[in-house]
């Protein structure tokens, strides 16, 4: 079976253009023939993830993790190499983005669900399940500004986790809610995985990644440092981060 996600020597180049936002600056740069400064957000990244697999992506800030996710989601496109993704991709949207405090939970739920790609009929079918999972209960028809921060995240996460796409992306959104809610989330993720969903998770919470994912990809400055079974890669990554922190501490002290 062909893999669910396949990257072949993928590079993504960004241009630093701090002055490009206004037309006159753009024209001035052209006039002075200023060269655009470029840098690689990702450089020759290759990996495969089989259907039903789950990949943890780790690395320090700016390593290219979010760029990788947006390439998988088809939100931006590689400058070099090839990205292949089979099936519908969901997730990635920050929890609660598109939420508005003056709208009720029910209204926000509908907007958010449609942003994540649920159709009218899919939402109708899963609506009760989503609401029950979120535990929002009688607050459903209250405006969102009356919700606690935890309730908002729970509502958003419940929608996100009921989308049921072939490929699900999670960007730093796994550690949500109290322990009971987290347990329910893990259970739901297990269930989705049994059905053949493929996961890609970006997080700094190593324990959660070890629990959810089977494989891991360690990025540094846009390059793959290591790819393999989750435990192995994460331990190597954590050891390296600890060593780096210790070195920084010695230098600073």
């Amino acid at each position: 079976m062909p893999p669910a996600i396949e990257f072949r020597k993928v590079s993504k180049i960004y241009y630093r253009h701090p002055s490009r936002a206004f037309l006159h600056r753009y024209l001035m740069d052209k006039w002075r023939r200023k060269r655009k400064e470029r840098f690689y957000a990702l450089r020759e990244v290759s990996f495969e993830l089989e259907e039903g697999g789950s990949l943890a992506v780790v690395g320090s800030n700016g390593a290219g993790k979010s760029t990788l996710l947006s390439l998988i989601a088809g939100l931006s496109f590689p400058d070099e190499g090839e990205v292949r993704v089979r099936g519908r991709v969901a997730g990635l949207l920050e929890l609660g983005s598109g939420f508005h405090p003056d709208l009720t939970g029910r209204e926000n739920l509908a907007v958010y669900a449609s942003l994540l790609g649920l159709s009218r009929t899919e939402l109708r079918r899963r609506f009760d399940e989503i609401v029950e999972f979120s535990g929002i209960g009688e607050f459903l028809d209250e405006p969102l500004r009356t919700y606690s921060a935890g309730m908002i995240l729970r509502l958003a996460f419940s929608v996100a986790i009921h989308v049921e796409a072939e490929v699900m992306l999670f960007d730093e959104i796994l550690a949500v809610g109290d322990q009971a809610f987290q347990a329910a989330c893990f259970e739901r993720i297990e269930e989705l995985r049994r059905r053949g969903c493929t996961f890609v998770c970006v997080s700094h919470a190593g324990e959660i990644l070890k629990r959810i994912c089977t494989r891991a990809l360690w990025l540094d400055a846009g390059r793959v440092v290591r790819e393999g079974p989750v435990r192995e890669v994460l331990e190597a990554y954590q050891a390296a981060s600890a060593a780096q922190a210790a070195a920084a501490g010695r230098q600073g002290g």
Partner: protein
Amino acid sequence: MPVLRHGFLLQNLILRDFKIRYRNMSLGVFWSLLNPLVMMGVLTFIFTKIFPSPSIKNFGVFVLCGLVPYNFFAVAWVSGTTSLLNNAALVKRVRMPREIVPVSVVLANGVHFLIQIALLVAFVLGAGYGVNRNWLWLPFVFGMEIIFVCGLSLASSALDVFFRDVRYVVESANTVLFWLVPIFYSFAIIPDQYRTVYQFNPIAAVVMACRLVLLENREPPFSLVWKLAFVSLLALGAGLVIFRRSKAKFADYL
């Protein structure tokens, strides 16, 4: 158009915009009516008391026929232009046809447009004009205007991502158009050599058609109708082309 396949998302975004604007206002939808009424009052005062135009009867209704289509155009175009920047988080992170963003904003303004049209119709009937079969032209005329604004907004919102000063260009263009659309003067007084130019401006064309139908019980002439349809569809086509050519780079610039 890929927008149509995402009807549920489009509907939700339109409703969200509309509800947010009115949820916390005690007068709710009536705010939508206040602006044209105030403008109507001011312009009527100026052009009946200060610079009287005796050739125009019922100046209030006459000017409202110009204000309602113009208002929709001006407000919808500006909010359409800034829509991608204002929804940067969604544009960067949601997989959807990105055309939906400016189109939904324009259509949310279209809801206000409908309310204002209802106001206009109420004034027309109140002033003693009757319903006639030429009213069947109104959905076509207003529909073309919405298509025109969608086209302009697709183009300007895409450009606004790369050059943030596009919105100021749009605002200035709106100020100029307030004078170049026959809002407080009649098409009849425009010298012959400029008439064709006026007809090629869809907003002017909508205003003229609106007055012919509502105030004179006349069918809009074919010379006006085809220009309106032609320019509006051309704007939509050009807008889609510009948008599609630049949308792959949105995520990198927002």
